């Protein structure tokens, strides 16, 4: 195997030389006596089992309990976890990871390549039936799809432990961002002996064995879970936080009250309250760019309205939305007006200069009127009316009302707003029983394809049924290309031109964080937290 290392891996190897990330306490800092970090979670986690977890709160806990091949640093770059480095074969399809020999499970057993083989096979095992099996398919691991479909045994998954500390993965096609994907919880190792011994009870605090910086010591479902230092963790000497407590608080404002009472160190800011909290507690209120987008999707399927099949109508409706007003006046949480589908915060993605972004709102409004008239709608033509569907929530309702007012005033369009409970909404939108609907997506990994893939023809989330052969082709090409920016730029330009969706804004995360808590990843757009990298300073 030759040592052709593509660009990304080359960059990666450099960062690997820096060494692993740990709590980076500057000299002279006085640490607090009690290193207990308590934060609020919205809901009970789906699971503690890395291969089964499907929610962000669960993933936060799993990153403390387990350690995958790579971790992320405070900026979201990958840094060594259990793996020290990797090499890539000439055809860019075989990845060989070298694991550190000091990594141990909390019961003292060494972490071996076999633990990863077992975990990855488990993730695609039809018997475990993990909803996140699709992630393994997305990683393009050879035979993953066939195994999930029940056509091949799990032992056919192209992962291999050539020795205790060498883990080899074969891909069905080159994937430039593959190395980034192995910091995801689905790819974390799992302890076969514990799972064999306790079955589905293996994640209970009294049974669970983990290889991360923390072990689970307490779990009271819907109230709290506690994790404490794992003395067996290879980098335990550099861990500062002794104990992490997750409190489940379902109500946003109650969570804020408990934050004010000092019961939690971090919580989410209730919708609309960022400006007042930022004024009151400027050192504790944060609005951070987040890897998520918010858009309106046109129903372009056969069920959709005839008007939306006309590109000019879609463009007009997009141009007439004053995103700045929505961001500044309605949401007020540091969100970003969006003219592209992919957020600017996405790693390695340069926002292309699409036409619509360069215009003033007055120019956009004029253009919108013109386009709609050309298409035969508006004052001199046919009356345009449609339904806008969103899931019940105060924030979505506000956006819907403002957008419909903009369309009404500027274009004379009548919009009927319709809101549905979440699952009913998903079902209705998924069955294309709507005219226009709300859409939003948060990246599964920090790369533009996590967004742009959604608008390809076969995507499971393409509820507008947009289909453009060139977009499909470009996105397929991007999977194996070493220079993806030109491809993504072209896709975004096609989207800005054909406007199958109206990008409205890119999210921000609004949180309250006590100013004594240091090392929380405020610069990581995925906000992937690692408690081992944090510390608490004395007040």
């Amino acid at each position, binding site marked *: 195997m030759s040592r052709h290392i593509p660009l990304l891996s080359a960059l990666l190897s450099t960062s690997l030389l820096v060494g692993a990330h740990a709590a980076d306490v500057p000299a002279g800092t006085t640490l607090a006596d009690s290193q207990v970090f308590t934060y609020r979670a919205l*809901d*009970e*986690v*789906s*699971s*503690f*089992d890395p291969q*089964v977890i*499907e929610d962000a709160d669960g993933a936060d806990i799993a990153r403390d309990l387990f350690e995958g091949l790579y971790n992320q640093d405070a900026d979201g770059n990958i840094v060594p976890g259990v793996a020290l480095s990797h090499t890539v074969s000439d055809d860019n399809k075989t990845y060989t990871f070298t694991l550190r020999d000091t990594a141990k499970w909390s019961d003292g057993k060494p972490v071996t390549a076999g633990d990863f083989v077992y975990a990855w096979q488990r993730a695609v095992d*039809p*018997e*475990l*039936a*993990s*909803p996140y*099996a*699709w992630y393994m*398919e997305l990683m393009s691991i050879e035979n993953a*799809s066939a195994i*999930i*479909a*029940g056509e091949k045994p799990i032992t056919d998954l192209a992962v291999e432990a050539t020795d205790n500390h060498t883990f080899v993965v074969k891909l069905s096609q080159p994937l430039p961002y593959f190395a980034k994907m192995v910091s995801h919880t689905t790819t974390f190792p799992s302890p076969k002996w514990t799972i064999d011994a306790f079955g*589905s009870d293996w*994640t*209970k605090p009294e049974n669970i064995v983990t290889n991360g910086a923390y072990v689970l010591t307490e779990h*009271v*479902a*819907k*109230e*709290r879970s506690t994790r404490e230092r794992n003395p067996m963790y290879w980098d335990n000497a550099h861990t500062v936080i002794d104990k992490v407590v997750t*409190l*489940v*608080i*379902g*109500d946003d*404002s*109650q969570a804020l*009250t*408990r934050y*004010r*009472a000092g*019961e939690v160190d971090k919580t989410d800011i209730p919708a609309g309250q960022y400006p007042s909290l930022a004024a009151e507690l400027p050192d504790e209120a944060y609005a951070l760019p987040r890897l998520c987008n918010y858009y309106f999707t046109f129903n372009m399927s056969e069920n959709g309205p005839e008007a939306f099949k006309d590109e000019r109508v879609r463009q007009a409706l997009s141009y007439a939305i004053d995103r700045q007003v929505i961001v500044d006046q309605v949401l007020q949480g540091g969100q970003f007006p969006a003219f592209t589908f992919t957020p600017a915060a996405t790693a390695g993605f340069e926002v292309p200069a699409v036409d619509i972004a360069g215009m003033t709102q007055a120019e956009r409004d004029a253009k919108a009127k013109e386009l709609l008239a050309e298409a035969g709608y508006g004052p001199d033509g046919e009356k345009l009316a449609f339904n806008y569907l969103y899931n019940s929530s105060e924030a979505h309702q506000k956006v819907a009302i403002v957008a419909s007012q903009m369309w009404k005033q500027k274009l004379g369009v009548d919009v009927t707003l319709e809101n549905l*409970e*979440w*699952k*009913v909404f*998903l*079902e*209705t939108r*998924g069955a294309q029983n709507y005219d226009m609907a709300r859409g939003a*997506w948060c990246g599964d990994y920090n790369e533009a394809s996590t967004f742009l893939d*959604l608008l390809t023809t076969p995507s*499971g*989330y393409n509820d507008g049924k947009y289909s453009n052969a060139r977009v499909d082709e470009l996105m397929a090409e991007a999977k194996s290309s070493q220079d993806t920016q030109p491809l993504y730029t072209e896709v975004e330009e096609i989207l800005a031109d054909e406007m199958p969706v109206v990008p409205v804004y890119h999210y921000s995360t609004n949180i309250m964080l006590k100013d004594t808590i240091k090392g929380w990843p405020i610069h990581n757009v995925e906000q992937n937290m690692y408690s081992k990298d944090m510390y608490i300073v004395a007040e």
Partner: protein
Amino acid sequence: MLNYTLRRLMAIVPTLLILIIICFYIMRLAPGGPFTSERALPDSVMKNVLERYGMDEPLHVQLWTYIKNIVLYFDFGPSFSQKDRTVNDVIAQGFPVTLTYGFWSAVFVLTTGIPLGIVAALKHNSFWDYVMTGLAIFSQIFPNFVLAPLMVLLFTLALGWLPGGGWNGGHWSYVIMPAVALGTSYMASIARLTRGSLLEVLNSPFIRTARAKGLPERTILIRHALKPALLPALTYMSSVFVYMITGSVFIDVFFSTGGIGQDFISGAYSRDYSIILGLAILYCVLTFTLNLLVDLLYAWIDPKVRSNL
């Protein structure tokens, strides 16, 4: 009486069966399922997931399996949303929490409501009567979803005496606010009921007879008046207690107690069929048992009822 109890207990079986069948089908009528997600799962993944939970079978087969597992193994199935846990786990952990603060809430309601009512009746139209009426009005305009946040503002934020939520193994400081917030409006109702019925009893002929016989007022109250006067309050309390346990969803969510009310809400949103069904069965059995207990208690207190059993 034993016969009556047995008859009542036996009636629970068909009731439950009907409840299960109705709930089972009604839940499936709601659009979306436990595995409907923002990004639709690929068909192959969905197939595996459905197979794992036996949801690929026809509905009547699923229903039969469900009932069979309950009867044979007392197994209420796995939770779809909390994947590491079964419904048995969920109830075993959440129900004691709700029951604990429900119990203390009932104690609070009875120990404050009944004395308040008695005092108000005895000191009819006096200052104490007005205090009681005032309290009753207060608790009506401050239902628990208003009272709870106010209490938190006062006792947690302003005074710092009590934690704003959580359970912490049921430490007393975590139980007080949920119990009081849950009970206050019932406390006022109990007080009003007690007041009204005690007034009525005190004006009835047999009390007049007792007075005419020269019994001391104290004996009249304790030995003769109180027992019949407490009947309406007792009936009310029994149905209220079931309400307090089953209707405490807001308290569970607001105070993050970890009680089963939270599961009911999140179960409904996530279409966690087995959780919803499991809790419906629990609530049904609870209502049934408590009603039976109350009827028996009633019979014990009131000879007229006893002879009819």
